[in-house]
């Protein structure tokens, strides 16, 4: 009685018998892919449906919730009203298109600021943790990951107390700039711990020999980092920049506390206002504002899917 093993067949000829192993991964792969695809598809259906309903509602005459997508009437009216500054069909103008542009610009500014701070600090700190030995390195890394565990909301009171105290030291002319700077720094601080770990992971995957040979050739540590190592972790930097940008773009609590109370609006606080009191809100226009807010996120993810997947995998092609 012969032993039968899956994926093994007897082959050869001329009386010679040998075991031929087919690629053990490829046989069930199609089925596995199908099952996985189906599972992921089913899991994301509710989420996709929600976003789809939001986007469709922004063109509809009502807030859609399912079957009414077929009975609703679609037009660009909600978008027109949104850009005209009318948050209800029969209401007066609350803001101008220029005001809306300033709001978008403020949001971009916060997001861009967070991106710059996070990328700069993480790329440097990540390299240091990956390549340099110094006293307390391990403890510091543990401490940094502990920092990541703190939710931003828990820190807000202390951060706010410092903010109020520090505002008194800022000349009046510089208050607006200071509000932006403080918001950017505070928001970036929440992102930095995880970003450092992410970057360290990327640096860890680069063979040490590459740097070694460059240093033997006489390059300084800084030059090696700049010219040899950084180009190899470009996907990591790009992914990090995207995450940081989206963190700044999507933030509500910090921009509300530090900017909005000073009369500076971003898209997140703008949407808060559009919805206002949910009882009397005209939701199709709120849906248009929500869609506007989603656009950069969607564009970013579509444009940088591969990079993100690489970053999630924590690897780079060396």
């Amino acid at each position, binding site marked *: 009685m012969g032993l039968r093993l899956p994926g093994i067949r007897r082959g050869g000829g001329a009386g010679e018998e040998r075991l031929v192993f087919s690629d053990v991964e490829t046989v069930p792969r199609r089925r596995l892919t199908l099952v996985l695809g189906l599972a992921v598809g089913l899991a994301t259906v509710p989420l996709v449906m929600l976003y789809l309903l939001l986007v469709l509602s922004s063109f509809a005459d009502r807030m859609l919730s399912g079957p009414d997508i077929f009975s609703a009437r679609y037009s660009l009216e909600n978008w027109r009203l949104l850009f005209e500054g*009318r948050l209800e069909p029969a209401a007066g*103008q609350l803001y101008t298109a220029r005001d809306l542009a300033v709001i978008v610009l403020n949001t971009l500014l916060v997001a861009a600021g967070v991106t*710059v701070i996070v990328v700069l600090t993480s790329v440097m700190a990540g390299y240091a943790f990956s390549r340099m030995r110094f006293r307390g390195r391990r403890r510091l890394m543990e401490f940094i990951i502990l920092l990541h565990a703190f939710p931003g909301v828990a820190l807000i009171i202390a951060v706010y107390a410092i903010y109020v105290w520090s*505002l008194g030291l800022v000349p*009046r*002319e510089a208050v*607006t700039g200071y509000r932006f700077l403080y918001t950017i720094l505070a928001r970036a601080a929440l992102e930095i711990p995880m970003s450092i770990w992410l970057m360290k992971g990327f640096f860890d995957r680069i063979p040490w020999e590459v740097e070694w040979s460059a240093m033997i050739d006489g390059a300084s540590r800084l030059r090696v980092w700049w010219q040899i190592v950084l180009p190899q972790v470009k996907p990591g930097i790009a992914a990090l920049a995207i995450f940081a940008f989206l963190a700044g773009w999507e933030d509500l609590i910090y921009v509300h506390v530090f900017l909005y109370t000073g009369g500076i609006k971003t898209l997140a606080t703008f949407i808060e206002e559009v919805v*206002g*009191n949910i009882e009397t809100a005209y939701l199709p226009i709120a849906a248009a504002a929500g869609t506007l807010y989603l656009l950069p996120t969607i564009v970013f993810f579509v444009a940088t899917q*591969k990079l993100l997947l690489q970053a999630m995998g924590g690897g780079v092609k060396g």
Partner: protein
Amino acid sequence: MAQRTSLVIAGIVILLVVVGAAFLLRGGEKPAAPAETSPASPATQPAAQPAAQAKPEKPRLTGNIEQDIVAIGRYLASQGIHEAKYTVWGAGDPNSVLRTLAVVEAAYRLNKILEKHGVDFKITVEQKFKRGGGDQLAEDFAAAFQSQANPDIMANSYKHIARFADEGYLLDITQYLEAYRDFLNDFYQSLLGAVRYKGKYYGVPQDTEARPLYWRTDVAACIKEKTGEDILTGLAEKIQKGEVTWHDIYRYAKLAVETGCSEWGVLHRKGSAHPDLIQFIYAFGGKLSDPKTGKLVLDVPAVYKWLYVEWKMARDKLIPEDMMSWDWGKQIHPSTVSGKTLIWIGGTWHWTEWQTKPYYTDPKTGEQRPLTAEEVKKYFYYTLFAAGDPGDKPVTLSQPFVWMIASNAGKDNPKYDELHDVYQMLAFLLVVKASDPDLNAIHSIISAHLPVRKAAEQLISDKTWVDKLAKLEVELSPEVKNAIADIVKATVNEINIEFLASASKMLAYTHLTPIHPQYPQLAKIFADAVDKVLRGEMTPEEAVNYIISKVKADPELAKAVEIVGEIPKDWQFP
């Protein structure tokens, strides 16, 4: 791949550069630096008044606004200050923009007086109107106050006065109002309780509302057709006299549902929208606060009766069990405007909300659209909130919006430490002017709120003036006129004016919820209890005990609330 990543990074860098450049180039967001009048160096101040002219004395308010503004303007000009800046915040539905724009208009009007008298001084007002409720705005105000970024004037619900006055955020304007006694006397006296706290005035009423019972005329007609009972004839008067009580309303609601004329007997607002339901306490002769002790009151008999009415109606399928979690735009308003209920416990603002929001599905075209003013008038009859038991009185409830002046009003102006009292007087004058009868009347008409001044009510009843308003031929600054032009077009019509005039009469029966820092907590417990009795999770008795236990569980609340009376044993409903 490498090329692509380089492109992405390059793209991000370009984006950052563009944003940075745009930020450098954009203007108009920086707060203006204080005028070139640094208190430290008189040399930098603009030329002082001619030496021959004696410097005017610090002004005092006289009650004559023209005289007062001129005196303040001259005094500040003599100090080398030729402009004062103020900010105003307000919140509400998009048609309530005059909550902030009226202050802008006030500055325009005061500047005209100053110009007329040749005073080299002007007031500028920066306004921020936020769509939505005032609660978030109040939190923003409190947060902004910490960094002195708060507005000088805020239009918000009176319910925030207690907390803000205790915190020291608000200006006590009692002494100013002493001088402006005539101005104060023109307000409905029932509303002045909304701006008084611990015997002092901390605001001026800005608008108010009433909460009528809306009755569907088509459902009532159907009941008449099927049973012969005509419930609407003379109903408003009967309710006003206390002849029709909630016992009768229960019977009408049951008739409507049993005859199949409507799906529900009564619908009401949900969630934390408690003020309408709080009317039950007053309608059953209860109270919510004791003016002698300053404490909140949990009036057990009245609360029990209220919860019993809700519980009984829900058990008999006259009110939906899950009413407190219905959706506003999909269930509550569409059901009301399409006649699925006999009664809607709502507010005066719903009259125009139904005309501006597409809650109605036109049976002919299938189109979702707002009701026309004519349709609203045709389908809805309105009355006071009926008395609870025979012998009780009908009621309505108001939660006025008020203008509050910050205790640091004028802080953004030169020499504030030295002249803060003058800047505060000026802020007060802005509020007085913003309360001009015509501004109050225009606001009432375009936002479906009720006027707070008798003079404003007279204007609303003046057909000639209303016609002028409809054509925008009233005296307003170009900025304000332009801002409200579209709203005027959409809202100023005879039907709405008639409704406002009629609803204003309800203010004679109005009650206010207490001005007490702990009241919102108590109201939240009430709303929670209502939800539980509607769903049948608790009997009315259990719900009352639940409220008592929740009050006692919070030491602060327990200290603030006095529990009076017991559950009535021999009370019958219906």
